[in-house]
């Protein structure tokens, strides 16, 4: 009963605060919305990059193409020879039929490539898995020495470059997110400070009659949560359809791009965005009233 009365007091006071600084509250909600939208974009971007790298990692292979089709016996002999190169973990013979099938599986859902190209243009090949990415070039060179091998391809260098790029992007993104966080926090703090100033006498009286600091603080923290949660909600409401629209387009234009479409992961990201809004608001409310609560 007592606790219920307190909570009712806090919430009523918080709503009074939001209403009292009406326009400024709307501005703050709008800025929280934009900030969290950008934050969400960053999270989605990073998740997708990570996804891409993971996908590429599974293709950490050297592919050795042979000039013409080989017989099963020849295939076994070449497999045996390639396996003896230092650093090679596993060699697998991929017939041209198999390669064509997996290629079509990758693409035909999205594009009708099979009918465009017509017959199978692919040669036989050997997929060579190496132990660590850094020895890829050496192994590739060794593989190329064999007369049976026509052409050697590997994507290690690209992966390494992409990884470096991602690290840079992640760092830059985090700096951006931190700056964004403080800028948004400042706006929220200043918005709620309007309520705090309008209620300076109330706060003075509360202190005078012996309200504890946390009691005085709660309405302002809740006011911050209201602003933060509304901002977060609007942020998600813009973020989700934007992401869905972009991924839909990309999937048609660049079908081989491994985009993150896992519902669960995406929902977790949206949840993180929403909770960030709430925490941002809470912190803003907490800070806004702190100066007035200092005791001598």
């Amino acid at each position: 009963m007592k606790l219920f009365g307190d909570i009712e007091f806090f919430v009523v006071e918080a709503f009074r605060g939001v209403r009292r600084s009406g326009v400024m509250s709307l501005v703050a909600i709008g800025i929280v919305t934009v900030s969290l939208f950008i934050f969400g974009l960053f999270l989605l971007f990073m998740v997708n990059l990570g996804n891409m790298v993971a996908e590429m990692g599974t293709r950490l292979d050297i592919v050795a193409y042979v000039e013409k089709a080989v017989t099963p016996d020849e295939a076994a002999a070449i497999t045996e020879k390639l396996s003896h190169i230092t650093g090679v973990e596993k060699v697998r013979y991929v017939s041209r039929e198999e390669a064509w099938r997996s290629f079509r599986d990758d693409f035909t859902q999205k594009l009708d490539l099979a009918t465009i190209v017509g017959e199978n243009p692919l040669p036989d090949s050997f997929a060579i898995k190496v132990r660590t990415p850094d020895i890829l070039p050496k192994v590739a060179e060794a593989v190329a020495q064999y007369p049976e091998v026509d052409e050697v391809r590997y994507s290690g260098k690209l992966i390494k470059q992409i990884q470096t790029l991602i690290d840079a992007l992640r760092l830059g993104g985090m700096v951006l997110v931190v700056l964004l966080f403080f800028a948004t926090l400042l706006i929220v703090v200043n918005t709620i400070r309007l309520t705090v100033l309008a209620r300076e006498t109330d706060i003075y009286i509360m202190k005078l009659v012996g309200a504890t600091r946390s009691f005085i603080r709660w309405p302002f923290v809740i006011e911050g949560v209201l602003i933060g949660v509304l901002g977060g909600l609007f942020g998600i409401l813009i973020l989700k359809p934007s992401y869905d629209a972009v991924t839909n387009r990309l999937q048609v234009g660049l079908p081989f791009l491994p985009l993150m479409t896992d519902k669960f992961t995406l929902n977790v990201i949206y949840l993180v965005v929403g909770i960030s809004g709430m925490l941002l608001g809470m912190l803003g409310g907490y800070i806004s009233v702190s100066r007035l609560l200092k005791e001598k």
Partner: protein
Amino acid sequence: MIEIKNVSKSYPNGVEALFDVNIHIGKEEFVFIVGPSGAGKTTLMKMLYREELPNSGTVIVDRINVTELLPEQVPYLRRAIGVVFQDYKLLPRRTVYENVAFALQVTGAARSQIRRHTMQALELVNMLKRASSFPEELSGGEKQRVCIARAIVNNPTLLLADEPTGNLDPTTSWEIMELLDKINRRNTTVLVSTHNKSIVDSMKRRVVQLEGGRIMRDQQLGSYNQV
């Protein structure tokens, strides 16, 4: 009840508000603090509920050493002290009832208690009939009654009134002093700072006279001026 020992206080702007002040006030006493503006009356009161801290010396209220209190303990000290201001400090958007109840609400009292104590306090100051009015609809004397009701609603052991009649006409001033006297007779220690000579002279209570931050006189059954 109150023990002020060797208290000195100067403000950052260099003003020396109090200088080596010593006062002892017993339980249920009624004491006038007199002296010209700037003598240190308000500072003295603020020390008691710890809105100001002395630069040196100790302040003890109801066995609590105010000067050594941790910030988080301060609210509990203030619940034992009621404060009445010259400018009332009522909250304009709240009714008389809400203004008084507010003092209980923010200390987390139960709802049934809030109602009972608020009604009792309003009855004591004779403002029950104006319970649903807003402060702007009240006269100065009525506002001061509400302010007093708010100060006593949680049954403090000490009531401080800083020039409570400073904005009131003589008749109303008398009514307010009689009210403070009535509260004193209900076992509350009362400390009143005032400029009101006729009231001090006719009430014949203990008078502490401050001047330039020093105690010039501390006299039982005193008058406004030294005789």
